[in-house]
């Protein structure tokens, strides 16, 4: 039997311990979501009761809370804006970041290191530091109070470029050289040779970007002036004012409605996402 076949199974205690840790981790992640959904189905009185196992489930599910969430926060108006901004940002940002990552990983050009350093530098400052400048830029371009203001500033990012560069480094140079000898253009190489390899990383970046765009609160707060361009996080924030929350069940119903698209995107891309996260640590 070869070396591979001689793998010893870990002791049962270790297996159980690992499983217990994994399930504990899952519970920590899932319980807040479960709490959110269950609270969204409770009455005001039930939601205000101190949590015990006996009070975990609602007596009778209050589906009307979802109708109230739509009524209170006017969610139907803002769903389209959020969807449009998140989808456009995701598709275009993944394309741009992947192409830039390919360029930084596989092309040799003057100023490559400096440009990569500049791209990475953008990751160091939080949005609060440069939002005034970004806002003025959007004003000059006429983007304020439109979906463009929610998309254009995020068409490429330091994180996305670096992430895709790391993923692209895993593609063997010999494959690219062979393609060039066959007369393929650089974009042909990216599309036919690099993309199939880095697809999991692109999927992972797509999920990161979608979630960021979908949840983004501060930037839309700055650039959206009118009701017609408002996004879901702004509408959700309308349901509370500081510590004063109008209704917890309605707030949780609105939050549940807001989370659904993210869950769908994750379920669609989860296999590629897991591979993508693992892949970015690989090198040739």
């Amino acid at each position, binding site marked *: 039997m070869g070396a591979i076949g001689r793998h010893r199974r870990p002791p049962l205690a270790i297996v159980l311990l690992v499983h217990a840790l994994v399930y504990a981790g899952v519970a920590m992640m899932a319980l807040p979501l479960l709490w959110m959904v269950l*609270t969204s189905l409770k009455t*005001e*009185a039930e*939601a*205000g*009761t*101190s*949590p015990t196992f006996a009070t975990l489930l609602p007596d009778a599910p209050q589906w009307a809370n979802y109708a109230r969430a739509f*009524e*209170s*926060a*006017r969610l139907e108006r803002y769903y389209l804006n959020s969807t449009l901004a998140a989808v*456009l940002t995701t*598709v*275009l940002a993944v*394309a*741009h970041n992947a*192409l830039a990552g390919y360029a930084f990983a596989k092309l040799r050009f003057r100023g490559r290191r400096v440009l990569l350093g500049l791209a990475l530098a953008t990751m160091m400052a939080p949005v609060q530091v440069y*939002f*005034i400048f970004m*806002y*003025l830029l959007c*004003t000059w*371009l*006429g*983007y*304020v*109070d*439109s979906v*463009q203001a929610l*998309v*254009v500033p995020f*068409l490429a990012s330091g994180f996305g470029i670096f992430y895709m560069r790391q993923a692209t480094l895993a593609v063997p140079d010999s494959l690219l050289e062979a393609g060039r000898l066959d007369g393929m*253009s650089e*974009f*042909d190489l*990216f*599309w*036919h040779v690099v993309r199939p390899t880095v697809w999991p990383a692109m999927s992972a970046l797509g999920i990161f970007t979608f979630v960021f765009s979908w949840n983004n609160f*501060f930037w839309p*707060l*700055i650039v959206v*002036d*009118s*009701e017609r361009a408002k996004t879901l996080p*702004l509408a959700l*924030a*309308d*349901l*509370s*004012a500081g*510590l*004063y*929350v*109008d*209704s*917890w069940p309605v707030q949780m119903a609105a939050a549940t409605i807001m989370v659904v698209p993210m869950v769908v995107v994750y379920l669609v891309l989860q296999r590629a996402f897991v591979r993508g996260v693992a892949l970015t640590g690989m090198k040739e």
Partner: protein
Amino acid sequence: MRSSAVVLFGIAAGTAAVVAPVALLTHDGGGTARSREILFTVWGMPFEDRLFEDGYARGFEAEEPGVRVEYRRFPDVTAKYTAWHARGIGAEVMRVQVTDYHQMVERGMLEPLDAYIDDPADGMSEAAIAAIPPEMLDALRVGGSLYALPQDMAQIGLYYNRAIFDAWNAANPGDPVEYPREGWTWDDLRDTARKLARRDGGRVEVYGFDMFIWQWPFMNFFAQAGGTLWSDDGLTTLIDSPAGVEAIALFRGMVFEDGSFMPAFGEQQATGPHSRFAEGRTAMFLDGSWMAPSFQLRNPSLDFAVAPVPRGRVEAVCAGACLWGISVHAKHKRDAWRMIRWLVDEPQALRYWDTLRVAPPANLAVVNSDAFRRTSGIASDREPGRYLVPPMREDEFARYAEWLRYGMTPRGESGDAPAFIPVSLYQRALENEITALLHDILRHPTQPSAEDALARAAKSVHDVIDRDRAAKGLPRVDRGSKAD
């Protein structure tokens, strides 16, 4: 065409379509030839549109047919106003939080109102000015000028569960407790909270006293101990004083000596003090005036009432305010002023109370009127019989709202009303430090010592002030013996 070329074209075309600058609708404070358009901005929840949009925006249009009011509500206005100011635009009528007021004045974001107020043709009458609580006007004067007028005067009060008091008295006829009332002292509060707190093994059955860990309760008791938050120039905080030590001793006494107050660290939301009181598990709860309608909605069977905060050596009630101001970039400032004057006038001030009931209007004529004794609330459009804000019947006034008059009524020889508005250019920095300080001192009976905790908080505030002044090229503040 090869597939890669199609994709490349798609990416390029998609990017170009998104990036191409397009002239879009942006409000620049302008108007049409037929009517002058003014922008009216507030923060709040959707149901508050009933007041701000239906009542105020449309009401003012009816009052001034040549003006169109563009109404906008945002979840947070501070960052919004800052961004607009950087862009050189601003709303005609802005709702402003008092905590941001001095910063906004310092940055030159607000139009001075003195010339408008004193205008013989278009200004405010003496009666209208006299209706605004004088201590509020004092708090809003910067360099002798007013840059905003107050909408309301939210106050901190002592909510109490009458059923818990009644149950105690029924079970202990020889040792009765009385409902909290005006004139109660710190000792009354501690004694009663100690009696009413009840544990069953490890589980707390009744919380004797409860509050959120935030700055208002500390500022309230600090002022009642004779403390002053700021030096006259507003550049040195005076919280590291005997009054601060006294306020901390009160909190620590209830937590570690009496066991009547079990602070909820991190339970600031759904399962925290609000919910415990609404659920009927807290005897006394210190919080703002805005919670009364919320408790009525959350638990209609909750038998509660509100009293003024117990007094220390000094009668003091911590208060806050929402203000009306005009952006320096507003295009129609004269119309903006007319709207503000109209907003603080008695009918509109009363409408605020009648609709939302979160805080008494900053109008003494309204607060002392009969109309203050009842409110209409907001009924749901879609569900008949359901209220978004419950009404207050006249017979409920004594339980829910009469206490608010205490803070706004001049007392004794001083002639000052107990309510005070903590304001300063660096108020936010101080309030953040006070919250952090409470988290520190309520976890252990002696560590850190009250003096050390207060000195540390003061130093942090002074560091913020010094950094800010250094960035502006201003000299460092000489704090003498308080120099850090």
